[in-house]
């Protein structure tokens, strides 16, 4: 299994020094390089374009204010990604009107199939199935599979236990597989907790 994060962009030498020195043009270059990964991460976790835009905005402001403390021990992209994840999850926690635990009733059995439905899932189907998942489940699934975080890291980021991360991942994967295998039984995104209808 190999995953390459869309954040994994190496910056030209000296660019961060220019940003630290107050060069707005250098900051714009960094912003334009990472804007799409940050925004896409936020959309996938929050499921809301407007909130994702604000999270992106705040993540870059946070990056700017925290840059003096960046020592370069880790790649810049990993550091920025963590800021973006924190910013996004913070917004998720603020959602008081939405449940942070999943509540969907569903048969625990997984439909048998001769081949993995995931292998044949079209992007749009996958997007729809992801959008239909509860916020937290979707976040864990994305952080684990989409960004390559470990359960330990996810537990830290979300302020939960490792077993919580594992159970959310297992349940989310099962639901996703079920939704992709039996689309007519897929949860209805309008009934569930997401704002967004993903692209067709």
């Amino acid at each position, binding site marked *: 299994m190999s995953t390459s994060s869309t954040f994994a962009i190496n910056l030209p030498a000296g660019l961060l020094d220019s940003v630290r020195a107050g060069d707005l043009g250098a900051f714009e270059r960094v912003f334009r390089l990472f804007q799409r990964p940050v925004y896409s991460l936020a959309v996938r976790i929050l499921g809301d374009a407007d909130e994702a835009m604000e999270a992106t*905005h705040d993540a870059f*402001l946070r990056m700017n204010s925290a840059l003096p403390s960046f020592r370069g021990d880790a790649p810049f992209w990993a550091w920025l990604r963590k800021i973006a994840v924190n910013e996004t999850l913070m917004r998720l926690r603020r959602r008081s009107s939405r449940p942070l635990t999943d509540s969907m009733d569903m048969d625990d059995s997984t439909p048998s199939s001769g081949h993995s439905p995931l292998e044949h899932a079209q992007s749009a189907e996958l997007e729809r199935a992801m959008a239909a998942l509860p916020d937290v489940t979707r976040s864990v699934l994305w952080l684990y599979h989409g960004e390559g975080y470990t359960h330990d890291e996810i537990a830290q980021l979300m302020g939960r236990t490792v077993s919580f991360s594992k159970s959310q991942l297992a349940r989310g994967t099962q639901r996703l597989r079920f939704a992709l295998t039996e689309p007519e039984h897929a949860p209805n995104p309008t009934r569930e907790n997401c704002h967004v209808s993903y692209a067709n």
Partner: protein
Amino acid sequence: MSVMPTDRRAAETNVHDLPASASLSHALATLPLFDPPSDGWLRLRASIEKGGFPSTQSNHANTRLTGLPPRPWRSPWRVQRGHRLLAVAAALALAALLLGVPDDWKSLPALPINTGLVSPVGTTPDEAEHVLPSATSDENSQTETLMAESARLQSLLGFTAASGRDAETLAIELALVDRMQWIDYLLADPNATAATREVLWQQRVELLTQRLALGQRDSLIAASDAATREVTL
């Protein structure tokens, strides 16, 4: 720091789940990125300038989304739908160009997309040679320079634009045309600010430069193919 999942996560993955888990990782990792709103940098710059640069933790809270009006909610689906409409328009414009038909795509009805940008006077690329922005200052001077550069590159494009000989080139060309149409759409917004226009013109120049590079690449490939044929003969 997080690293890629392969080794570190092997211990925490059930062996029986690996094939499905791997294909899900692959499927999720290859999902396309979303296109963020085009005014993201303008908003961020406004916040930074308002709060000073480099900003500090203390002014972070005060600089959040200031300087520009709140944008209406727009779901990624609606963004994608808008892009699809623009892609169709772009494809029609390109087809018209290739067929030698005068391009009258601008007579199409306005696209049902709220750009979320506000303020005075807009100048479209076609008007650029005749109408200059009414506002003054260095910003306008810079915009005028960009307009001139845009016109120069556009004229060069007629000689070197990619001919779409292969599907890859055509797809890239269409994507670039799509983005240019989007920028032209935003430039036509009568409420676009001088600062917004300057950024949009800058992006237009960059896109034209990319299209020229694509045309040059196409020419090089054609020349290489011709040379190969000669050697073979």
